[in-house]
């Protein structure tokens, strides 16, 4: 396992090494970082939100208990943020965190372990009626306590490799217990009081969010910036032009290859590019409640029709997708190798044989020439591009598909509330690479699985996987789970994994690409070399 993990680390470093020379430089203080954000802020509450539209402008105001090292975000290199150390018991069932005594919220209130306890109670055991988007990541947590102001303890039901990565989630903003007690659990949706490197100044909806350096920040010497401005720019052309015109220095999500090439051609060495595999994948989710998608043969035909290996080549020219993979983040030790992938329906390199099999299955199921509607999200990259590609792929096996592109709120309503769809695009975008937690998306009982089905067999297998003690056992069970989900039951069809391309102004220093657009967004590591 050690060798595999080492290879994974090397791969991650190789991705980051596509940057221009990473020569150590002495950070300079001062300046304001302007960056563009392509999505709106639904609310300020990290515990309920799942979008970069919130995390990019709001994360700089908050601290975390532990975080992915922003200077090494390609790996699961965790470090303390408001803690000074943590220890795990020998049996892996108790984690004890020592909380720093020099952390203060922006309103002047000192942070203690009680604040951490109140925060994690809200995330892991939210009261009825209080939403917590990542509650399912903490299934292994039995209880938690704060025996004194500098000690926070978590007890687990069973040891789990998924626990620590889940604790480093960049969404787990530490809130003040005083705020939660006095103002209630929903106060943070519209108000900001964190202990992060920047203090909230203002939010002009639809225009920008502004933050200014917090002098009392607990990481000495940081942040380097005097402040930042997160500029709202929904249109990609506007974001590209903002960087080209130097009205903004960076966009932290990603640009497609063409935009990278445009910026490099226009600005030469004034632009630096970092690229990385991305812990994000789009999938086609059939509605199992709606015939004929209740028939596994029809669902399998959908996945067999998709040319993933070819798509990786030609789709990567026009979209932010590239890597062929199964349910686990590609190149992770728990991910399927190419030899394993080609055994799964729809991953064979013999495309014609796959499509012939798809036609046979459709005929057998009486669904030849099936006509259906594909529900897609009105976001160009990569949703509309991948949607148009899928429509063409299904056409190759005689399916007639109409693409229905809906604005995000309508799209989510269809998935989450009405369930009125035949097949829909869906995504699994995670932050810290945590395969065992990330693949919970495919559990029928998962709150974010929209395929509308129940399956005790999948649930039981995942439970075994979550409790697996050794890496070898985890890997074997992961393969079994992946085959069951993608091949045998074809509950959903994975398309291509995203590929992150970040072209930005070369004077922005200290920012390193991560395999997620959610990571490294507190901005305390960034400085400007102007």
């Amino acid at each position: 396992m050690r060798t595999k993990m080492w290879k994974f680390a090397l791969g991650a470093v190789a991705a980051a090494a596509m940057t221009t020379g990473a020569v150590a430089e002495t950070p300079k203080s001062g300046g304001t970082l302007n960056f563009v954000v392509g999505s709106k802020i639904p609310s300020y509450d990290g515990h309920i939100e799942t979008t970069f539209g919130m995390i990019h402008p709001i994360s700089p105001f908050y601290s975390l208990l532990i975080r992915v090292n922003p200077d090494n975000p390609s790996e699961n290199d965790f470090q303390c943020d408001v803690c000074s150390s943590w220890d795990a018991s020998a049996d892996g069932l108790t984690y004890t965190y020592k909380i720093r005594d020099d952390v203060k919220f922006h309103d002047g209130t000192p942070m203690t372990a009680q604040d951490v306890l109140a925060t994690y109670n809200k995330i892991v055991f939210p009261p009825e009626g209080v939403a917590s988007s990542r509650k399912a990541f903490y299934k292994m947590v039995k209880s938690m306590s704060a025996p004194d102001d500098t000690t926070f303890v978590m007890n687990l039901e069973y040891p789990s490799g998924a626990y620590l990565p889940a604790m480093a989630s960049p969404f787990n903003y530490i809130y003040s217990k005083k705020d939660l007690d006095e103002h209630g659990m929903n106060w943070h949706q519209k108000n900001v009081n964190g202990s992060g490197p920047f203090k909230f100044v203002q939010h002009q909806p639809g225009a920008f969010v502004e933050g200014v350096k917090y002098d009392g920040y607990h990481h000495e010497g940081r942040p380097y910036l005097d402040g930042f401005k997160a500029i709202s720019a929904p249109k990609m052309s506007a974001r590209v032009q903002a960087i080209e015109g130097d009205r903004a220095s960076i966009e932290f999500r990603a640009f497609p290859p063409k935009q990278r090439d445009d910026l490099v051609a226009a600005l030469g060495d004034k632009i630096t590019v970092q690229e990385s595999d991305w812990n994000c994948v789009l999938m086609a989710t059939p509605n199992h409640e709606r015939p004929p998608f209740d028939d596994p043969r029809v669902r399998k035909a959908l996945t067999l029709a998709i040319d993933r290996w070819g798509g990786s080549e030609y789709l990567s020219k026009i979209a932010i997708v590239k890597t062929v993979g199964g349910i686990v983040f590609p190149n992770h030790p728990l991910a399927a190798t190419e030899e394993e992938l080609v055994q799964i329906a729809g991953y064979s390199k013999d495309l014609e044989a796959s499509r012939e099999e798809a036609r046979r299955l459709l005929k057998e199921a009486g669904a030849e020439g099936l006509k259906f509607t594909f529900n897609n999200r009105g976001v160009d990259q990569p949703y509309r591009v991948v949607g148009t590609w899928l429509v063409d792929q299904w056409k190759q096996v005689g399916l007639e598909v109409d693409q229905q592109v809906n604005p995000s709120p309508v799209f989510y309503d269809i998935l989450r509330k009405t369930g009125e769809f035949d097949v829909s695009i869906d995504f699994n975008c995670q932050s810290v690479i945590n395969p065992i937690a990330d693949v919970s998306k495919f559990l029928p009982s998962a709150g974010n699985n929209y395929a509308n089905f129940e399956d005790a067999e999948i649930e039981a297998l995942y439970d075994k996987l979550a409790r697996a003690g050794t890496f070898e056992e985890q890997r074997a069970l992961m393969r079994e789970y992946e085959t069951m989900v993608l091949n045998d039951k074809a509950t959903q069809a994975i398309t291509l994994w995203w590929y992150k391309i970040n072209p930005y102004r070369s004077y922005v220093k200290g920012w390193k690409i991560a395999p997620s657009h959610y990571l490294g967004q507190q901005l305390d590591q960034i400085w400007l070399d102007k």
Partner: protein
Amino acid sequence: MSDVTTEQLEEIRDRPGLLSQIATFARKQPLGTGGAVVVILYVLMAIFAPYLTAFDPTANSYDSQFVAPNAQFPMGTDEWGRDILTRVLYGSRTALFVGFTCAIVGSTVGLVLGVGSAYFGGIVDLIFQRIMDVFMAFPLIIMALAIVSITQSLQVSPESSVYFVIIAITLPLIPNCARVVRSSALAIREIPYVDAARANGFSDTRIILRHMVPNVMAPYLIMITAFVGQAILLEASLSFLGLGVQDPVPAWGLMLRNAQEFIRTEPWIAIWPGVAITLGVFGFNLFGDAVRDALDPKLRSQ
């Protein structure tokens, strides 16, 4: 049976033939004639699109992504390897279908409402005109955007989406036509033959449809020709904003939208649908202006 006099026969004989009338029109309205040629070309493109190209407008060809214009692909290919000429040709079907449907339906409904409003007058006219004022207070594109956004929230099927686009474009056109037609109908209402029809006991519907509507056909036809260009532009705008028809349906506005990302390195992807929209709208507007000039007695006498 009345006898035809010699003078009448001479007048009929001296009346210019169709070709002669077209020649006169072309001489007096060279720009309008140019517009008419464009309109006819577009209609022919739409009808004969399958015979003018060997490619399927929706079939992707991944070996031919981003091919610059050449002998095989005179307008180049797009990001999916689709022949742009083929998509422009088929795109004229979407544009003209939406354009003509919106213009004819919008103008016809406006005609009936405008004449009716003028005929009844009084409180009916007052209320009706205030409603028209409300509709006309919004720019066309804003109205269309609002309507199409509402219909989107109804989660209609993709096949129906084009009809909702038509509704979104048609509704804002109605008050424009109704207002113009009403002003002509107000004058006609005062002409004695309308009083005579009333005195004969004809129904309101009969008076409106048989005695008043035929006399406001000139502004009606002018509005139709003017609206086709507007409707094509609106449809393209809605598709450009992602609110019209969806991929892979060939539509000029949608082609422009998709071309945004590649405009610097593969400009032909944006140029051709842009040219198609510009030329189409220009042609219909020129033709509409010429029709107006030809049908307006004052301008005709000048």
